[in-house]
């Protein structure tokens, strides 16, 4: 399987390209998605691929990726440099070279990690809290959605019974098809509506839409309802289900 990486929004085909635009965010996604090692092997970089396979996915990915690609030194190497440096300094009494301060603050990294961990926990807690409120608003949304259909039902007068959130489609289909709890309500729905645009089940006349049962809706009401119904991804009943019925469908082979 051949593919390139997208780093900083540009296609990348070689290791040199990766080094020239080292996009740790995108590389992290490829790594966690499981396709970074595969790509590296596809371009012959098996050694780096072996290293990325060993990355601790629960750890800091940015620095681990940099180490795998040789952009940053691993911690042990840094420690060695510091030890050598210290010995050199102690022996010769030279001042500490500036790069030592660059490499030394692993302790700071730990503090940063701890702070980040705390922030993550706080965010997660917030997110959970918000999830609760979303659930609440979800419920109220469905409530209002049912209300919308309910008002249509009242106007038509041919509808009875409770509206379960998943029963909306069938109920409204029944309204159009003319049976309170019509058999195959939703499945007739497609064909019932077809006349609105092309066939003979529903008629569009002078700005009104007439359903097979004689119910009359203004075109505005009709369109508004269609848009509302179709824009609720969870509550949407299926579509095109009537096609399966070989007897009714134009798709029938015989």
């Amino acid at each position, binding site marked *: 399987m051949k593919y390139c990486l997208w780093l900083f929004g540009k296609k990348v085909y070689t290791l040199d390209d990766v080094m020239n635009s080292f996009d740790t*965010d995108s590389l992290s996604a490829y790594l966690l998605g499981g396709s970074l090692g595969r790509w590296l092997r596809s371009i012959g970089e098996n050694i780096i691929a072996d290293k990325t396979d060993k990355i601790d996915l629960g750890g800091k990915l940015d620095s681990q990726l940099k180490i795998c690609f040789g952009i940053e030194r691993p911690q042990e190497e840094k420690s060695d440099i510091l030890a050598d440096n210290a010995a050199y300094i102690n022996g010769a009494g030279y001042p500490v070279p500036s790069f030592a301060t660059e490499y030394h603050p692993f302790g700071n990294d730990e503090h940063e990690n701890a702070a980040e961990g705390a922030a993550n926990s706080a965010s997660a807690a917030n997110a959970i809290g918000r999830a609760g409120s979303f659930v609440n608003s979800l419920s109220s949304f469905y409530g209002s959605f049912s209300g919308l259909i309910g008002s249509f039902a009242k106007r038509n007068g041919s509808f009875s019974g409770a509206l379960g959130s998943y*029963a909306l489609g069938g109920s409204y289909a029944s309204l159009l098809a003319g049976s309170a709890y019509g058999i195959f309500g939703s499945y007739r729905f497609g064909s019932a509506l077809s006349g609105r645009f092309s066939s003979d089940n529903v008629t569009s006349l002078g700005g009104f839409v007439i359903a097979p049962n004689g119910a009359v809706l203004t075109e505005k009401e009709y369109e508004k309802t269609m848009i509302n119904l*179709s824009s609720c991804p969870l509550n949407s009943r299926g579509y095109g289900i009537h096609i399966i*019925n070989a007897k009714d469908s134009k798709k029938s082979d015989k």
Partner: protein
Amino acid sequence: MNAIHVNSTTPFFAKHKDGVYSMEQTELYCAVISALQWRKNNGNISLVTDRRGADYIEKLGISDVWNDILPTISENSEEINPLMFWAAGKLLALRDIPAPIALVDMDFIVWDKLSLDGLTVAHREDLMPDVYPPREYFSAVKSPFLDAADWTVLPCNTAFLYLPDEDFKQFYVGQALRFMKTAPDCGDFLCHMVFAEQRMLAMCAERLNVPIKTLLEKDRLFVAQDSYTHLWGAKQQMRDNEKLRADFLDSCRGRIAQDFPDFGYVVATIDNACQ
């Protein structure tokens, strides 16, 4: 055009540790028609699943409905929370099946021969805030990609997804799986899942300037058409209404008998298994 159905049993076993896996009769019939209709007009279709899913289909005796059964999905879902991300199997399958590839949900039927020449999805979806909340809702997921993403693009319904390009596919799958693996367990079984699968796709395409085509217009899903079937919320309706379910099953039996007589045995097989 090669296609895949994907069925991961991991979410089921996460809920029912010692349960006996099975698919609903309505789902089985729809999957069978979806596969056979695809083969009739569009090419090969494989069922990508895990070992338990493959065993189920094989024991049922309907595995030759598909061109092949690929039990390649890891049953541990690569540490992704299977309850929050119940469709993660689709992303894992996509990662490992080469493009160009069409992912067809088992409750989605394509009735026509398709001729597609770019990234194509079933249809767009509206940005309902209850389903597609803003960035702040996912603030626990640290991601420069998400920070920079366009949160106004409309999500894509991926009941049908055609990915012609391996480069884009890997980028999208990587972003989606990364999101799933780094999101905190927060008991949300909707927003996180549809974000990772459906909104992320639109964001990735926007970021990389890849145009998205749709099979259907989102505002005209329920207008008469004879090209696509999607059971979608009707599955729940059929659970709630026995008569509806029975009529649907009869329609499926009739369709199989008429259009796929060589697979007529499937009807008795499914009916016996689901008694």
